[in-house]
């Protein structure tokens, strides 16, 4: 069997006596697109945060590309190729688009925490940033502060910065949230174009995005894995339908 | 270290004043994550007003009332006039109160001069009484009683009334409070005003023992900050415990090692914080 991209073993997370994640185990193969869905409060975002290292699990192991990262702080997990996006785009609103991209490209590039190099004199990294901006069609707004840009642009800046770092495992937390309905098809197209070297774990409410993009779907309910399989199989699953129909799902399928 | 009744009484009476100043600071911080650096100024205003009113009208009790209401009025002006505009910008709010502290410091010196002023306690509370075999000033004992009563009142208000429940909910999670349809800013405004009232009352009550002079604002602010930091930001019971600890430590050190009096409580604060950054009774937030 090939090495797995992500392996969660019996992840449990309790906060103040409340069990948010209950013995979650799952395996994602390299190149796979995995969607994690579930009613509100099912623990999806918590799960992504545990994988990314922002929350320590109460029990269980997180293994990324064969390496146990359970005890690794979030910033060190980037070394194994793990990156995450947030519901509110994880961008720096007060910095320009170019600075956002540079920040991603400059990570770990210069010794002494980057004190040894002036950003403007690093021609190589400036050129790389230019390429990234061009590739993501952001050149026209390169020197605008991100806070002035519409939401869709901010999302694009977030993804561009993540891809500039060449991730191997990308965690997307509701990337379609905040997009207008007519933007969704274009967004799905963009997701589909992601290279297959990148493994993607996606939390998403929009079923359109999930079914258009995911190879496999994991359903979380009350912090536990309720079902796991191909999108079609999960859709047929009676327990899943029950969980969704029980009214726990406050937001409609976008 | 032999416990001396007199210094315990002095320590506890000081703790009463500290509590009055610190509790508003603490709850306001808990709600809005901002430190009111004008806290000491409100205390100073309370003290000076009380001194003037007592001199003009000859009534200690009216002086207390006037000091408290004067501080309340200034507090309301600060909140309505300025803090409101800077909603959610904690750094600027802190800076604003620093500016207010400068202004008050200078204006009070202008009006009342630079010499320490002392208010005489009312007739009934002058002199000393015998307590546990030691002679202690009556007014100090009265201060302790007042502190206990007021702490009880604050506790009742926050723990036993619906309005207090809003405040506590706001300290835990302001967003949640607003989701319940309660105006967090109004809750904040009321807490801020009550805090100012208590500060002014503390200043008026404290004037007979510590006197009031330029610099008293900074001194009480720094001590109150220690209390708040030690007790845990936003915690009323923490403020009570920390006031007592700081008051007693301060009084003991003054008795047995006067040179270190200024220094001891800060070391205490730094030590506690190194071990428990959230304070003695505070919860882990922020």
């Amino acid at each position, binding site marked *: 069997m090939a090495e797995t991209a992500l392996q969660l073993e019996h992840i449990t997370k309790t906060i103040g006596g409340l069990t948010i994640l209950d013995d979650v185990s799952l395996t994602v193969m390299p190149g796979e697109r995995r969607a994690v869905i579930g009613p509100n409060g099912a623990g999806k975002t918590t799960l992504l945060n545990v994988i990314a290292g922002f929350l320590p699990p109460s029990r269980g192991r997180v293994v990324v590309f064969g390496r146990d990262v359970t005890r690794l702080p979030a910033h060190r997990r980037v070394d194994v190729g793990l990156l995450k996006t947030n519901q509110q785009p994880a961008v720096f609103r007060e910095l320009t688009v170019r600075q956002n991209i540079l920040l991603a490209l400059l990570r770990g590039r210069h010794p002494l925490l980057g004190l040894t190099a002036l950003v403007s004199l690093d021609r190589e990294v400036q050129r790389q940033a230019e390429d990234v901006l061009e590739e993501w069609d952001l050149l026209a707004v390169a020197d605008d502060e991100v806070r002035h840009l519409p939401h869709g642009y901010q999302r694009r800046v977030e993804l561009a910065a993540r891809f500039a770092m060449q991730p191997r495992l990308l965690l997307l937390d509701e990337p379609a949230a905040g997009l207008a309905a007519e933007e969704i098809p274009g967004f799905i197209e963009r997701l589909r174009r992601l290279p297959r070297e990148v493994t993607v774990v996606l*939390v998403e409410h929009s079923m359109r995005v999930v079914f258009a993009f995911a190879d496999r779907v994991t359903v979380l309910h009350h912090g536990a894995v309720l079902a796991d399989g191909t999108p079609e199989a999960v859709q047929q699953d009676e327990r899943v339908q029950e969980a969704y129909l029980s009214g726990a799902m406050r937001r409609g399928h976008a | 270290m032999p416990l001396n009744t007199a210094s315990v009484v002095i320590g506890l009476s000081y703790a009463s004043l500290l509590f009055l100043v610190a509790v508003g600071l603490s709850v306001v911080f808990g709600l809005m994550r901002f430190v009111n650096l004008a806290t000491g100024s409100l205390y100073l205003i309370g003290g000076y007003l009380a001194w003037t009113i007592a001199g003009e009208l000859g009534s200690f009790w009216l002086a207390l009332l006037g000091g408290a209401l004067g501080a309340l009025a200034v507090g309301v002006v600060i909140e309505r006039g300025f803090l409101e505009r800077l909603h959610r910008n904690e750094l600027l709010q802190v800076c604003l109160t620093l500016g207010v502290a400068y202004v008050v410091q200078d204006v009070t010196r202008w009006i009342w001069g630079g010499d320490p002023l002392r208010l005489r306690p009312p007739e009934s509370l002058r002199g000393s009484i015998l307590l546990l075999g030691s002679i202690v000033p009556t007014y100090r004992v009265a201060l302790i009683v007042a502190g206990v009563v007021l702490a009880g009142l604050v506790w009742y208000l926050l723990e036993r009334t619906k309005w207090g429940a809003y405040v506590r909910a706001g300290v835990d999670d302001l967003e949640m409070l607003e989701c319940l349809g309660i105006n967090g800013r109004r809750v904040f405004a009321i807490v801020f005003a009550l805090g100012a009232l208590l500060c002014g009352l503390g200043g008026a009550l404290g004037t007979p023992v510590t006197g009031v002079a330029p610099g008293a604002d900074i001194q009480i602010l720094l001590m109150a900050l220690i209390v708040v930091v030690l007790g845990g930001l936003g915690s009323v019971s923490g403020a009570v415990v920390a006031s007592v600890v700081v008051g007693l430590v301060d009084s003991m050190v003054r008795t047995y090692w006067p040179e270190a009096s200024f220094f001891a409580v800060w070391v205490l604060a730094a030590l506690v914080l190194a071990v428990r950054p959230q304070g003695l009774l505070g919860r882990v937030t922020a």
Partner: protein
Amino acid sequence: MPMEQMSRLRQRWQLLAYVVAVAALLLAPAVLSTYPLSVLTEILIFGLFAMSLNLLLGYTGLPTLGHSAFFGAGGYVVGLLAKYYQVPLGPALLLAILAGVVLALVTGPIVLRTSGAYFLMLTLSLTQVLFGVVWLARGVTGGDDGLPGIPTPQLAFLAGSLEPTANFYYLALAIVVVAIASMAWVVRSSFGLALLAIRENERVVEGLGYPTWLVKYAVYALAGGYGALAGALYTFFKGYVGPGQLSWLVAGEGLVMTIVGGAGTFWGPMVGAAVVLLLRYEVSTFTQRWLLILGLIFIATVVLMPRGIVRLPERLREVRARVRREELLEPVAGERQPAEQVVERS
């Protein structure tokens, strides 16, 4: 390419401004008499102090009310060295910087467990502890009396031709310029970019793989070093160091200068220091009410111009840029503004 032209034009103006400023500063002793020159020296020193504070407050978003700890530490180090050991200027300044850095490295792990108002209060607490230590160690520090009679160093090669005030002015100017140049390097480096990002959202920076705690620790140490250097110069300038130099009032003043000038801008704190000190000397010639006026200025700045003096032109540019952007983004009308911020926990 109007954009590039504009920035090139701006660069040229900037260069011109620097040349004029440096020339003016170099010629100042020729035109100014002793008193204004000493005010100018004080502005340079406090400007450096406020700029070091700005590294924390403006660039990293760490509000400190205890930065006087470094200012005082630097002062006491050079004071003690000059008074008791006759250590020459260079090594004394280096040791002062080192003391600031070490003090920051020791206290950093305590204060950096927190942020926001907690950070403010913790830095204040630690400064008060230091204040108490200085007070207690009377035998060494002179307690309340401080250390008077510290000789003001002079530039040897100018010693014959200049009177002492002007001589020390040039010395301070040279040191401050070098310090500011190195600070400019810091904020324009890759490290400096990370600071700005941390100010806005530390967690996202961590998610990009930056060791944010270490970055904050490093900037705290740097700010401590610069702050101590400013304090050392101030002690030399006054020929005296006392516990007042450690007082949180000095830290508060640095905060005022930084905010009035513009926190998070490079030159803002220097401008703020100039405004505050010039006003102080101007105002104190006709009234005692300096503190009142300072307080009112500060309140007015916070309420009316919270981003500081230096940012006024920038704000105008911003308005112009917005107009340009709106024209640019017209074709993508389909984009939706993030009007409703979906706050949701799942």
